[in-house]
């Protein structure tokens, strides 16, 4: 009965951000930036995932995703990327979530359907590791949001976001899709970007 009061839109965004949080945790685990012991197994939507244990890490991801939520709600976020950079701050790998929330979607929100689709992402991620090369040592990572328009300095956490100075690749990257879902209320695509061959030689 409480559910009906919420807008389907809000529910979608909530589901999406929650999924993002879990997925980011999982990606960080999968890429082996931190020792496996820093994570613990949990279940999300009945899928075993790994969740960061250190409060700092967890809070970092959590706070970012939470602050993203308002912008996703406003349909300002185009992509959310997890960027792994080497010690020279040059990105070596990007996990990109491309989001598209259908704002006009009004009809009944079928949480199960969306969750079912999102679940596939996590399953795919768990096996995707084998298709990736190990990251170099001394990697750093960050979460970067690509906005359609710059967030204003509104009071809702906009000031938390700073324009990124992440170095970019000269050449268009190579894209490896991980998983896509498209539904009426929500499109999500996850793919991995790597520097192109020529870029790597530079």
């Amino acid at each position, binding site marked *: 009965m409480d559910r009906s009061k919420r807008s389907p839109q809000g529910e979608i965004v909530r589901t999406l951000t929650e999924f993002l949080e879990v997925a980011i945790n999982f990606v960080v685990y999968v890429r082996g930036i931190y020792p496996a012991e820093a994570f613990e197994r949990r279940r999300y939507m009945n899928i075993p995932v790994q969740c960061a244990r250190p409060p700092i890490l967890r809070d970092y991801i959590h706070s970012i995703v939470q602050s993203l939520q308002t912008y996703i709600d406003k349909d300002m976020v185009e992509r959310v990327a997890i960027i792994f950079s080497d010690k020279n701050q040059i990105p070596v790998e990007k996990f990109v979530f491309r989001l598209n929330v259908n704002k006009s979607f009004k009809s009944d929100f079928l949480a199960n359907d969306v969750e079912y689709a999102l679940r596939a992402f996590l399953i795919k991620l768990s096996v995707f590791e084998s298709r990736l090369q190990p990251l170099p040592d001394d990697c750093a990572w960050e979460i970067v949001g690509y906005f359609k328009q710059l967030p204003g300095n509104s009071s809702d956490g906009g000031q938390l976001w700073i324009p990124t100075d992440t170095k970019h690749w000269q050449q*268009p990257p190579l894209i490896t899709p991980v998983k896509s879902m498209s539904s009426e209320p929500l499109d999500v695509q996850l793919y991995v970007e790597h520097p192109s061959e020529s870029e790597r030689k530079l």
Partner: protein
Amino acid sequence: MSHGRASLRPNSKRKRASDGNRTLGMVWGANSVSSSKSKGSAAFKDFGSYMSEKERKLRLQFQSEAENSLPNDAITDLPSTSENVSGTGNSNGLFGGISIFVDGFTIPSNQELRNYMIRYGGRYENYFSRERVTHIICSNLPNSKIKNLRSFSRGLPVVKPQWIVDCIGANKILHVGPYQLECLANECPQQQRLSTFFSVKSNSLTESNIGTEFKVVSTCSGPESSLNGETSERKNDCYSKSQEEILQESHTVSTSAQNILAKGANLNEENVQILNHEFQIPCLLNLKEYDISNHGDACGENEISEYDIFRSENNEDISNSMEATESRLSITKYRSHSTLEDANFVENYFKNSRLHFIGTWRNRYRKRFAGKSSEEIQGQYTGVDSSSNTTSVADSRVIIHVDMDCFFVSVVIRKHPELNDKPVAVCHSDNPKGTAEISSANYPARGHGIRAGMFVRDAKALCPHLCILPYDFSAYEEVADHLYDILHKHCNRVQALSCDEAYLDVTGLHDPDHIALAIRQEIFDVTKCTASAGIAGNLLLSRMATKRAKPNGQFHIRSKEVNEFLAYLPISELPGVGPTLQEKLNNQNVHNCSQLRSISKDVLQRDFGSKTGDMLWHYSRGIDHRQVQSAMEHKSIGAEVNWGVRFNNSEDVHHFLMKLCNEVSLRLQGACMRGRMITLKVKKRKKGAGEPAKYMGCGICDNISHSVTVPSATDSTDVLLRISRQLFASFHLDVKEVRGIGLQVLKLEAVESCHQGSGKNVLKSWLASMSKTPNSCELVSISNEENGAAVCNLLQKNQLLLDMKDSNLMRDNGSGKGLQNAERYDAKVKWKGKSLEGGPLPHISQLDPTVLACLPQEILSEINDFYNGKVLDYISGNGKVSERYSVPNMDVAYRQSTGTGSTSRHLGDSVLEEHKRKNTEGDLKTMDCDKRQKTELKDHEELAQDVVASTTYSVDVPTPSQLDPSVLLALPLSLRLEIQQHYSATNAVKKKNSPVNVQRKETSSRSQFSVSNPGKGIHKKVLGKASSSNSHNPEFMGKSIDIVDRQTSNDDAVSLSLSQVDIKILQELPTDIQRYIKDSLPAHRPVVAPHENALPCKREDYDILNIEINEPTNSCVKVGLKGDTCCERSFCKGNPPEWVNDFRLSSCVLLQLISECYCKDDCSKSLSSLLLCLISSLPEEFVSCTDIKEQSVTKCSDLLKQYIREKVKYDIEEVHFCVRLLKRLNVKSEFWLAIYNTIIPTLQANVGETYGGNLKL
């Protein structure tokens, strides 16, 4: 009268209903039996339909009663208030929409409640149903339901019956909050509620500050649960359970806040600021928690339970911050009776615990006698079948059970002979009024009725001159060691039961009576303590004999005396029969074994459960199949303290847990074990139980326990502490109620293996490093005289190496005694380079093979690494093989051993690993989805088994016919190519003259070049070499080309089978060569059973090939003649999409086939599934058609282009999948290759446009 009738009727009905409920199991069983007996007469299909029918009728009755209730005025037993209300006449719809379910005994009774519901428009449900019931009414709940409230109530409000009465009284629906069951409202009665907190809000600045903080929590928790400072609101059970829990949590926070406030009331403003700051943390956490669990609620019970972890952790955090706050405010804590004043309580506790001594003694024993006994016991009675016949068992075995007489006492008093005949007991406290328990008493004391487990004060009452002595653990240890020295001296097969009790298996030794006597005598001589012995045919009887023998005697139950001995034995004497079981049996008028024997096994099992029943049946006949065995392995290690546990606050708990974890950690380390599963058990004072009789004891408790599995085995205090605190917090207990805590670590692993497992994903890291340096595979054959274990060693060793980023893998094929070959993938080019820089290695020929052979495996494999794996070959004296390695550019040299055919598990594993590696490394582009990968892996497994199962000839490569073509077909292309290349390469070296080989090489080289695979230059080189080696045979060159693709698609690696040979070519060969080929082929194909099923399919291929030869040109001509022009239309619209029709009507056979495939397989959703269908069963036309009409290609690629354009925006995955499938298709067919080349630029442009990058192909 009318009243009487009205109230009786529902009563009887209710009774029936409850009857049905109670005998649910019986009815079910009975129903099924009867229905099977009398088929036609059964009115209900099953129990479910019966129940639903019953419920429907009950509802109907209820409704009709409700309709009649007012006119009849049947209900006169209403309370006066409701009578008045009903008099006003507007009571009818009071409970409209409310449907209650009454659980258990209530006041007013469920009948009265039912009548109220009838009268006031509500509904009454006889059976619980989540759909129909809105409120659960009960006065008290069993503990199990409280603990598992969610599953019991399904989120419905659980209210007291008073609610209904009061609602009627007030003539409106009151809020359920105040009527909620207390035990649910708050776990412990002395906790204060949120309302009290808010009511004092205005009293001081301090409190109001925190108050606002909590407002934040509450308002943010969502509109539907605005707290408004009302407790009743908090308990509003209309909301889902999860919300309620959160609120309860915030409630606990507030309670602790209240405590702090009370304590810190006189502190100044500054501290208050700190306090506020601290509180922000829990508030935030609560918010998060709310979101999550709210969601969990939305997606069902499962998720909720999962989120419990989240919640519990947050809770822990809260308590952390609470602790911090408390400590910062430096509030003095008062400990009234907590023994935790003693900071080292846990250590001291275990120092003085007898049970702990016995427990740890086991470790000591195991270490001391490790290996001494186990080996001898192993395989002792392999010949003796455990027949159920008592006499035969007794005939074959002789067991002595040795038990020290009142061990704990006699050890202590052996230095005090004057105490020998005085009553003595051992206890850790000699306070005559104390509640310490006597652990052991000597026989004079037992004569006074003193028993172990008695309180000292009771014992003193029985025997005032009882002498109580403390434990002397070092003496116990010493005596126990002596005891076991003696036992092991006399007998190899000793099973230690405890420090003072053991079984000896003296079967086959001389007179058991004599042995027992000697042992007892020796024990007395050495330790000055007496022992008793029982001798019998099995463990059970020998133990019972000892009982008879005590004190200081021995008793032999001979096989013929068994029945006599048992006949009048009271059942309480049987091990495993405790007071409860005894009482149950006594109720059945069973007092001794002969009575017990008269009951059949089935009856016993029915009455007491299958295990207990079985035990009783056997024991009453003196049957015991257990064997004397050395100490069991630990299953769990842990520590538990149930005495003296009292806490005042969470800090105490933390401190205690820390000590406990420390203890457990030490025990783990002592046992050289690490565990992955951690269980915390908490004893919580049972509600209503008073202070226990025993001083500081645990009293009557509820046991709560919970487990958590951690990713890597641990023995670290930190991890244990973290987990245990987490678990403790998850119980949501009031620390004051805790009476005992136990921590156990399960899923133990020995420390050595832990070390190996500690490197995360050994295989993965290895795979990862593999992909850096692909295709540098070399082969080693190891001479390996030992079997399994040694191989295992090697593999383990390799794992270590992998850990160090030196990736290689020994792979053993077969576990025969001869050569065991291992294939090693060396991915350490860099590493090797480095080590070679260190200094030049002596040439391999300079190494002395005999010296090498004597080296330990580790060193050997290390040296082996340095020589790129040639050393082991060298040792095994297989000079040829090592020579072969020097052949340049040969990337895979694969050698199959002369296996005995026994399936080695290692082989299977390593093959799997290998293929997995190959998948990752070479097939990144063609591998589609994980499912596929899995099936491939399965296939590899089969392949591995096939390889092992087949008895091979002594050739270097497993003959290709040994490979299952179906498996090969299922392999990803690149993998197949690799196998194929390796065959061609080896064959090229080996048999240059065989035309078949030449043919084969042609095949492989052709297919290799058709793949644009720049990363595999090495392959090309290999093939280049291969083709150059057959260049003296030019006549085959041109002709093989047109069959190549087909062969590639069919059975790539089956190079030596007949089906591989193109008939056309064969026919054009000179007849003598033809005959040679035909003769030589069967020789390479041993008739092995597992492959027989594979052969027919190959013959089919052969037939197809035969026919095919005449066809292709024709079909191609057809294609060439007609061909539709295609235009820009939306192909993908419609169902089936337009293109399907378009293609079907097209004159091109290929397009028709595509369309056909689409319709046939009903892969209507996506093109990827269509392509997948095509890949799995590619029609021959695609392969054979060499002359492809441009127009059909255009048409098909236009479709794909359009599809890509459509999909690229939101389903790049599908696009990627399609392209990869195309890529796989294009090596099989020119047609697809052309399409592929056409669409790629469009694809990349589209992807670039949308994603700013290129699709990785």
